[in-house]
């Protein structure tokens, strides 16, 4: 019953409600993995559906993600204790020279809401910083975002630098951002492209 309440509170973007309901569920002895999968992740999946269908817009997505994160903070120690692994590890950032972060943040939130572990490198991330993060965190996926035509070329150069460093094949690369297209993603040899945060989840899942 509390799982339904968590699900509903995430959909409604009700962070205090989510926090209270997750606490109740844990107190009742519900397994952390069950809470994660059947309420938080399920709710964020529905948020993605509603976004795609035009029922939700960015604000609704943001407050749902905020509620989900509130619950996830409470769950994390229990997930670790239970040995439950994430759906995959994702290093994500906006490429060098580009300070835009909202698109990247939305993707990170939706991936987190799908059970991925996120290492967010922020904005204006150089190829060397991406390489360092790949070497340190050994992610399954590396996500690059760019909002500008001028900065999206940084995706190509980052992939080239990863190749030169010999780590390109250790990670799947997904790209996105307003000027980025599927054709561009293929041209620069990225492994995946998503036109929005919601669809980035499906792409990421297909790559792990």
């Amino acid at each position, binding site marked *: 019953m509390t799982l339904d309440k968590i699900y509903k509170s995430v959909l409604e973007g009700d962070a205090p409600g989510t926090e209270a309901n997750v606490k109740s569920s844990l107190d009742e002895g519900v397994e952390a993995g069950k809470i994660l999968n059947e309420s938080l992740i399920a709710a964020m999946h529905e948020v993605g559906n509603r976004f795609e269908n035009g029922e939700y817009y960015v604000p609704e997505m943001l407050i749902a993600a905020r509620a989900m994160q509130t619950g996830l903070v409470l769950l994390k120690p229990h997930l670790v204790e239970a040995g439950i692994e994430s759906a995959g590890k994702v290093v994500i950032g906006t490429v060098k*020279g580009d300070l*835009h972060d909202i698109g990247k943040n939305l993707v990170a939130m939706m991936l987190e809401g799908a059970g991925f572990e996120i290492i967010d490198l922020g904005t204006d991330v150089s190829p060397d910083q991406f390489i360092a993060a790949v070497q340190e965190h050994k992610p399954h996926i590396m996500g690059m975002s760019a909002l500008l035509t001028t900065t999206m070329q940084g995706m190509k150069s980052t992939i080239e630098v990863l190749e030169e460093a010999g780590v390109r094949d250790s990670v799947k690369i997904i790209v996105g951002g*307003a000027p980025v297209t599927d054709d561009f993603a293929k041209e620069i040899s990225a492994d995946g492209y998503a036109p929005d945060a919601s669809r980035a989840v499906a792409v990421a899942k297909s790559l792990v």
Partner: protein
Amino acid sequence: MNSEMTSRERVLAVLKGQIPDRVPHFEWEINSPVVTALTNGGTYEDLIELLDIDAVVVGAEYHKELIGNNLILNEWGVTSAKGAVERPLPVDALAPIRSWQDFEKWSAPDPLAPFRFETAKRRIKRFKGQRAIILYVRDVWSHPRDLMGYMELLIACLEQPDLVSAVVERCIDHTLIIIERFAELEAEVVFTGDDIADNHSTLISPKLWEALFMPHFRRLVKALHDFGFYYWKHSDGNIMPVLDMLVDAGIDGIDPIDPLGNMDLATIKETYGDNIAIKGNVDCVDVLVNGPKEAVIQAVKECISIAGPGGGYVCSSSNTIHSGVKPDLYKTMVEAIHTYGTYPLDMERLITSI
């Protein structure tokens, strides 16, 4: 149709729904590296004359000061970070308005500070009567976004709607004074560039847009018309969910019919072409960046063949001439508009591939 129109007459004809002598061309923004390259170190004004661009954009100036190595504080109290290859971007974490208390302490800049109009006055003096003078101001979204922080504004639309509305109202109060001053300076067209959509859809729901922003938008449009301005609205992205509202509010033109947002020039022409002027949408993400010249010419021909018939159309880039656009390709675009955009349009020539 007048065969001896000035640039000004050409642009105004489009806004009046008439057929000009030639499809006009202008851009809201031409990045300085492109200006410099094409004019051998000259100015924006020099480029207007060199390429015979039909409108010149003017705006109010706001002072900025450097604070620290990488941050810029403007008169609005907005702190921006300098990027390597773009204009400074507001830092959400340093946004000045987060609460009613912040709002009560905050005031907009003095709209009538004398320095605010100096560059505009020079431009107007140089081009008045010859080229359309277009005033750039912000409408209902961009000031609140910068003042409250981007993500914070999006959330506040749901959680603090009264605060959002109050911020918008105070910003519009400021803008209307700027507009009145420019009416005295005899600018004739206003353009606003607030991006209210991404490629997927509008950032907020049409319902929220109507409830929170449209009352202010309508107030702005009415005031613009009362001052005698034509009004051209720009937004990136897919604005289809709110376009009817914007048109019903009385906008006179729409731009740029963003291909990235799946905005279709033919659909917009067919649906709205009898009521508003249309401007766009030669691809500035790939074609104007990578060329070749033949692709630019072909893109211009396609746009004119779709949106040119019957007038009411300005051929331009699909957003701006940003720093990634190759100067020669922009020049090619303008020349192609002049070559293929003469009325009566030679449709056979336009639909023939080069």
